[in-house]
């Protein structure tokens, strides 16, 4: 059995609204070849397991990893796809190393949102017996969650808009991000309504891209790099499927996943012990809801925390210094990008968006509508 798992390399593709010049395999190769080069490792010899994250309906192929098996080193070797967000690939990759079965695992997440219609893809996530026929998608479901959250805590759309202003500004300092810009709260408020209270600028834009990462046992990690980033804790949890089963303004699954990750990491007080956070905000309100679920403030307090500037780069608990998903990150890739951005921060390589002295970071990913499945990874130097 291995005692600890480190992240020894990350590579992120160019994220863009459309990447028509590459197919999935070529997009995957772009990041896999870079992460191998960075770590000095080679396929097939140095990598003994591969875990990928992609989505059958987005890719237009069931068992969607078939499209990338060859470039991930899966030919006549081990490769598994998990169907959740990319953060969960970290969870399963690390579990395989902790078991002692593997020592060096290549992770990949890819999605090209430009190739189909997100609302039709996400409609298929709704159960076929009771709800799919009503035409729901992730945006209309999120709007129901956002409204309930506004109602429960007496919030305003301005509270969501401040997340957009902060994240798009942070994105200007992130060379991977394509959607960075200066916007004002009033520009967010007056952007076209999509499904109120969600307006156009409250949504993460369609994006094509991929992220690759290498995990290693402690022994292997020491030989590969002199700056490993350790996985200190991780946890996952599911909430109910049906919208009406959940208290949409609460995030019990995230609180559960965070409690497991913090317990594993020995973190008793995340407000004191965590230096920065990367969360998956497909919609602006989710950043507020997720940081409450992570226990970084009380329930209903994230809007005030954000308005105070505490979540900005340079604040007491920076959230999404990368610019988050609003900066332009594909679905499914989202959580692996969160972990990758946390690694870049902990290595001190984040350039102008660097959180000074960062030693402990939390990355969160989710899949399903309204954050049904949650994954939390705690990372440290």
């Amino acid at each position, binding site marked *: 059995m291995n005692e600890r798992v480190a992240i020894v390399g990350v590579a992120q593709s160019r994220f863009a609204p459309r990447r028509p010049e590459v197919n999935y395999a070529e997009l995957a190769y772009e990041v896999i070849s870079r992460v191998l080069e960075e770590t000095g490792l080679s396929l097939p010899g140095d990598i003994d397991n591969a875990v990928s994250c992609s989505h059958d309906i987005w890719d237009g192929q069931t068992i969607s990893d078939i499209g990338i098996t060859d470039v991930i080193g899966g030919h006549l070797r081990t490769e598994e796809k998990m169907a959740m967000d990319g953060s969960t690939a970290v969870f399963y990759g690390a579990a395989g190393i902790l078991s002692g079965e593997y020592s060096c695992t290549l992770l990949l997440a890819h999605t090209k949102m430009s190739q189909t219609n997100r609302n039709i893809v996400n409609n298929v996530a709704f159960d076929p017996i009771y709800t799919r026929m009503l035409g729901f998608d992730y945006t209309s479901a999120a709007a129901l969650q956002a409204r309930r959250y506004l109602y429960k805590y007496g919030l305003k759309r301005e509270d969501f808009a401040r997340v957009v202003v902060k994240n798009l500004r942070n994105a200007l300092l992130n060379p991977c991000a394509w959607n960075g810009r200066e916007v004002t709260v009033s520009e967010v408020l007056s952007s076209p309504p999509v499904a109120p209270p969600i307006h156009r600028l409250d949504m993460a834009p369609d994006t094509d891209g991929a992220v690759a990462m290498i995990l290693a046992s402690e022994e292997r990690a020491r030989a590969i790099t002199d700056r490993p980033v350790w996985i200190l804790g991780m946890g996952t949890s599911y909430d109910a499927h049906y919208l009406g089963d959940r208290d*949409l303004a609460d995030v019990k699954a995230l609180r559960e996943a965070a409690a497991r990750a913090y317990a594993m990491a020995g973190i008793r007080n995340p407000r004191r012990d965590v230096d920065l956070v990367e969360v998956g905000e497909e919609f602006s309100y989710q950043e507020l809801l997720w940081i409450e679920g992570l226990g970084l403030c009380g329930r209903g307090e994230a809007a005030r925390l954000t308005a105070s500037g505490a979540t900005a780069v340079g604040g007491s608990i920076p959230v999404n210094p990368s610019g988050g998903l609003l900066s332009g990150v594909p679905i499914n890739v989202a959580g692996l990008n969160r972990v990758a951005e946390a690694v870049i921060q902990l290595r001190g390589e984040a350039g102008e968006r660097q959180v000074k002295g960062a030693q402990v970071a939390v990355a969160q990913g989710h899949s399903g509508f309204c954050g049904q499945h949650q994954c939390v990874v705690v990372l440290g130097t």
Partner: protein
Amino acid sequence: MDDLNQYQPFEVDQHLTAHGNYWAGRAGSRFYRALRDRRRILGSPCRNCRKVFWPPRSICTFCFSELREMVEIGPLGTVETFTLVTYAEPVHPRPAPFIYAVIRLDGADTGMAHFLDEVEYERVHVGMRVRPVFAPQRKGNILDILYFKPL
């Protein structure tokens, strides 16, 4: 000879069409027969957890006990949250704009996500009391409830 560094990206067009028939299960079959034939809405009570679930189900979400009983819920209910969908998609059964709401039916502990109509969006609020409008010709699907409307 082709230039190895120059090419025009080429898209392969795909259109997937699939027709599915999904068995509604023990609870779902009873629910849809009651809705279609009697305009009654059924939920599943769990006596251990003292909860009544909609959609009806055969296993309790919380204690995993088998649920065999069914009880009538609604038809009146209360809006818990709502939105106005402004965009059109082929998967929508109605033309946009339209209102979605989560409605807690009287006697149920979980909400039903469905349409709200015969009301201006600006007048919709959390806590609004509503009742279902049933389709005159019911086919045994969730659109046998056309939508909910204010009392």
